[in-house]
């Protein structure tokens, strides 16, 4: 339910982006006659029985898969450990390259796939591990087997990992009004504008497309933030990939706050977002 709301806070599509999305959907034949151009960000949530081919694309004449249909939108995989492991591993390359090349005997095609990858999972087979209300009945082996279905390299590519606790019955009625989607969207649009402005000369639009060289140019850290990151690196055993990703996330958090400089708070928050990594997989 939470994941389905994500498109509602994503920044507005530009005309070029809308065209590109429409093209992909047109190729795959899913464009409806009453919507000649797609103006909203796509949200794809394939069932966990999906095959690797239909996820990345394929066929005699390769057609775009779910990841390309989610271009500039969201690909949501619910119950991540239930997916076939092989199916999940094919995501590794496309997540990094933002495009996928499908080679068949007759042709070789490259489709774009610049999507936001969102996934959800239970903490253990019974679903109560770490819950304060109910006892978990799983054995430690069962839990680590369940977690182990998500490979380290895939997890490494997920920037924000958070554990959410159950919503209590009383909260469903909701007394205090939280921020609405349109309010959040305003903040997001503002941050996006800052990024477009900043990367005018670099031919990119967002923090996520920063290359290592650009990271060192645009993600300058103060001394204490540097020390924090170094400490986190040594203690948590983060990968080189995680290093770049933490900086990008911290840059984005700073942008959302409208802060020019990446502060220690931002780095700390970005590190906290890699909670699963350090908690379950590194023990």
């Amino acid at each position: 339910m939470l994941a389905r709301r994500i498109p509602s806070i994503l920044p507005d599509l530009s005309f070029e982006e809308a065209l590109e999305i429409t093209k992909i959907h047109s190729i795959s034949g899913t464009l409806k006659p009453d919507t000649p151009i797609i103006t909203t960000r796509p949200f794809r949530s394939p069932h966990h029985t999906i095959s690797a081919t239909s996820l990345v694309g394929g066929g005699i004449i390769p057609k775009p898969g779910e990841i390309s249909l989610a271009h500039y939108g969201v690909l949501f995989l619910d119950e991540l450990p239930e997916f076939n492991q092989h199916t999940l591993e094919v995501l590794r390359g496309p997540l990094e390259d933002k495009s996928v090349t499908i080679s068949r005997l007759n042709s070789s095609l490259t489709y774009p796939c610049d999507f936001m990858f969102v996934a959800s999972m239970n903490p253990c087979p019974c679903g109560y591990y770490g819950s304060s209300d109910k006892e978990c009945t799983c054995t430690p082996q069962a839990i680590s087997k369940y977690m182990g279905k998500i490979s380290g390299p895939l997890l490494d590519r997920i920037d924000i990992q958070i554990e959410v606790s159950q919503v209590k019955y009383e909260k469903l009625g909701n007394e205090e009004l939280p921020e609405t989607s349109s309010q959040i969207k305003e903040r997001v649009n503002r941050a996006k504008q800052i990024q477009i402005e900043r990367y005018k000369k670099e031919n990119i639009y967002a923090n996520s497309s920063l290359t290592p060289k650009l990271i060192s140019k645009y993600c300058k850290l103060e001394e204490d933030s540097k020390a924090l990151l170094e400490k986190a690196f040594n203690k948590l055993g983060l990968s080189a990939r995680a290093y770049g990703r933490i900086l990008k996330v911290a840059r984005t958090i700073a942008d959302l706050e409208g802060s020019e400089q990446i502060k220690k708070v931002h780095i700390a928050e970005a590190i906290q977002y890699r909670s699963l990594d350090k908690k379950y997989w590194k023990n």
Partner: protein
Amino acid sequence: MQDAPKQLYVEGNCDLLLQDSIAIVGTRNLTDYGKRYASIFAKRIAKEGITIVSGMAVGIDTVAHIYSMKEKGRTIAVLGGGFNNIFPKENIYLYKQIIENGGCIVSEYSPDTPAYKQNFPKRNRIISGLAMGVLLVEARYRSGSTITARYAIKQGRQVFCIPNKLDEPTGYSGNYFIKNGANLVTCPKDILDFYNICDDDFIKTAKEYEEIYELIGMLPISADELSKLAHKPLAEIEEALCMLELEGLIKHVAGNKFVKIM
């Protein structure tokens, strides 16, 4: 000390000889396991400003010297020959590096004495004598490192051993000493705690975030709850939690909650 050396030749920073130090010794044919833990211990102990003493032989000794210097720590090498006859020859580079990094080289033999085989076990008494305690990482049955540990016991020094696999020939002596009452250590903190050496960063972090640290107990508590209890914005709490966790003061447990580590 019985059979104390008549004289010591020292090259480099001789003030080090009077400072707190720990000896790290072990086999020449080290395994990955030994290498890993020798480096972890050397690095961590050196970081606290404690000098690492070793014998500048190949294997564990070399690892101990190199990694102690990585944390800008200082190190003492005790030779079995004169300064002009470094053995093994490939360690001449290490010899220079130690002096450049403010460490020192010690030998009881005049500079031109060749590296006689029979002198090596004898210099082990200087290694153990200089240090407060000896950490035995990996050692075979009746090896040179075993001699160092025996000297340490004779001289009233502590012997620390890391546990080893039973079927590893290089694990024999470590396990033997543990069986006979040496201190079993599993992390550098064990040694530091033994000598009551505190980690400065550790205390500083605990002080800096004292208010939030006090609120975390043995029962898991989430960041949201902490934010409400401390009347502070969530971002500030997250920063504190991150710092406290990195210092090893608290632990992140399942359910996105935190507990204190005693």
